[in-house]
């Protein structure tokens, strides 16, 4: 199985390269080296030599290798989803202190680079007079998903358990779904995946349920960790939240559970705390609910720092450049 996958990866890659060569000049083949210089990252744990699927040896931290990934379900199974379940997430903004542990847990689970946040903690302020609050935003797995509607090849799909996944073995990289998603939830693999991450993923066969190994030129996003759900475990962000702010569960069971294992009645929770969905007026019917940030016990986010970050306004002057053509 692993051997097979290795072989597949190899041929896949080879085909891709061959095509690019057929299209054009042979000149470039030598000119553009595949080697890159990778920025050093803090790593604990011992270093281990790993063979990547394309036959290169990389030194990876053993920390990344501890993860055991069970063999994934078949593609057809992954597209169907789990019968009679409707997964739902509730994020209690009153409990979120913006520590971003959910993001880190998610990144560890999915071998993501640090600047790619499948669940991202925003600092929000609705109006000048209202109090700012932290706003963790995963994929909303909408019931009227704008992204899935526009996919031309059925690479992103809605499952019967409500989860929206991406099949990166089918995605053609048109990025229509990214344009369609009003929540900026989707990410594109602009370049080759970081070899360190590739090494950490190892020979895990691909399944839309675990979203790895990632492939260049395809889209990815928060997947609600369906492989964990199949093992009866909650998504990484939920179980990783030290504030117990994220609840996850099955809407059909009318129950959600948080990281401490506290299970509450979903309808009760939403009723008691005036639960709502973000940008309800867009009609996307998200599967993620929010509880308003009432009675918080931690400092509110500092909104002064927001918006002033390294925003390069280079495009202003350069736009004028294009005007003069």
């Amino acid at each position, binding site marked *: 199985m692993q051997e097979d996958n290795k072989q597949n990866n190899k041929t896949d890659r080879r085909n891709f390269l061959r095509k690019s060569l057929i299209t054009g000049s042979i000149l470039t083949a030598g000119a553009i080296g595949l080697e890159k210089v990778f920025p050093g990252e803090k790593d604990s744990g011992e270093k281990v030599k790993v063979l990547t699927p394309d036959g290169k040896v990389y030194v990876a931290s053993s920390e990344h290798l501890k993860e055991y990934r069970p063999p994934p379900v078949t593609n057809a199974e992954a597209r169907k989803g789990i019968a*009679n379940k409707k997964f739902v997430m509730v994020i209690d903004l009153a409990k979120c202190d913006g520590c971003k542990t959910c993001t880190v847990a998610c990144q560890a689970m999915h071998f993501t680079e640090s600047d790619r946040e499948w669940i991202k903690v925003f600092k929000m302020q609705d109006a000048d007079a209202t109090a700012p609050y932290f706003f963790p935003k995963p994929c909303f797995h909408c019931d009227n998903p704008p992204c899935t*509607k526009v996919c031309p090849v059925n690479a992103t799909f809605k499952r019967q358990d409500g989860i929206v996944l991406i099949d990166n073995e089918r995605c053609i990289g048109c990025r229509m779904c990214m344009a369609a998603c009003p929540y900026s939830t989707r990410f594109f693999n602009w370049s080759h995946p970081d070899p360190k991450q590739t090494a950490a993923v190892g020979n895990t066969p691909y399944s839309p349920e675990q979203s790895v190994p990632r492939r260049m030129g395809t889209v990815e996003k928060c997947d609600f960790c369906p492989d964990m759900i199949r093992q009866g475990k909650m998504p990484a962000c939920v*179980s990783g939240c030290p504030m117990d702010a994220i609840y996850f569960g099955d809407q059909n069971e009318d*129950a959600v559970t948080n990281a401490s294992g*506290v299970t509450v009645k979903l309808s009760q929770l939403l009723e008691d705390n005036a639960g709502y969905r973000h940008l309800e007026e867009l009609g996307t019917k998200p599967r993620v609910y929010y509880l308003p940030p009432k009675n918080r016990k931690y400092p509110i986010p500092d909104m002064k720092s927001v918006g002033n970050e390294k925003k390069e306004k280079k495009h202003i002057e350069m736009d004028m450049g294009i005007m003069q053509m």
Partner: protein
Amino acid sequence: MKMNSMIKITSLAIAITGLFCGIATAQDQSQALGKSEATIELSYYKKTDMSKTAVAVIKAKNNDGKFVSAKNARVNFYVMHDKEQQLLKNVNTDNNGQAVIMLQKDLPLDEDLSFTIVAKIENDNLYEDAEEQVHYKDANLTLNLNPNDTARLVTAKVTEIGKDGKEIPVKGAEVKFYVHRLFGIMPATDDNTITTDEKGEASFAFPKNIPGDTKGVIIVAARMEDNEQFGNVENKATASWGTVLAMDKDPFPRALWEPYAPLPLVITISTLFGGVWFIYFFIFFQLRKIKKEKQLKMR
């Protein structure tokens, strides 16, 4: 609460490894200089299958003076036997600072029919010595759901085991009732704690609005949690008292977001563009005729 943290162990994915490793290394460095202060929280569980476990949660002071989970600490478990400590096993804590051992069925008992378990950190490289012990009696919790009962009465009975092995009802023990859900157990009602009567029984009417599976089946759990005398004891039973979940008749209907498009869309697009292509084919046909004419003339 300890029961909950028990679940936490299982539910917390190993994925958090990455998260904690940063903190852990920081600790490693500071603790190389001196041992850090540690605490032990010890709890005892008796589950539905009568298995008995002891769980020790180790926390240690970090640089900021806060107590955080201590991973990879060596915990020695002992059982009191004739006033002497007998080593059961030593276990290293996992990433959440927890060490778990399975206990033997017949633990050595004192005169008052109770047993004592001790958890210790001894001569650890990283942590200062610490000790904690618990002292419990063995109890049975039985759960009885009568499927034919229209009042849907859930009855739990608590008994302790007497000297001659006889079961004696326990009065005044607090039993909590839960319903099993996908990722945890949910209190069956807002006020789910019932105290046993002189027969050792605690009962309550199962609420009507709890969803079950497609057949309405639910799993009810009754628990004594952190009971002073008996520790944590649990039992489970099933009944089809939940509301029946209506199955999706067609989980993949024709829709804009599904693989198959709504028919009006298919019809509209195929008519519009089919019509155009039909005309194209007519034109190709005419072009063919123009070409054919030449051949006729050639002859």
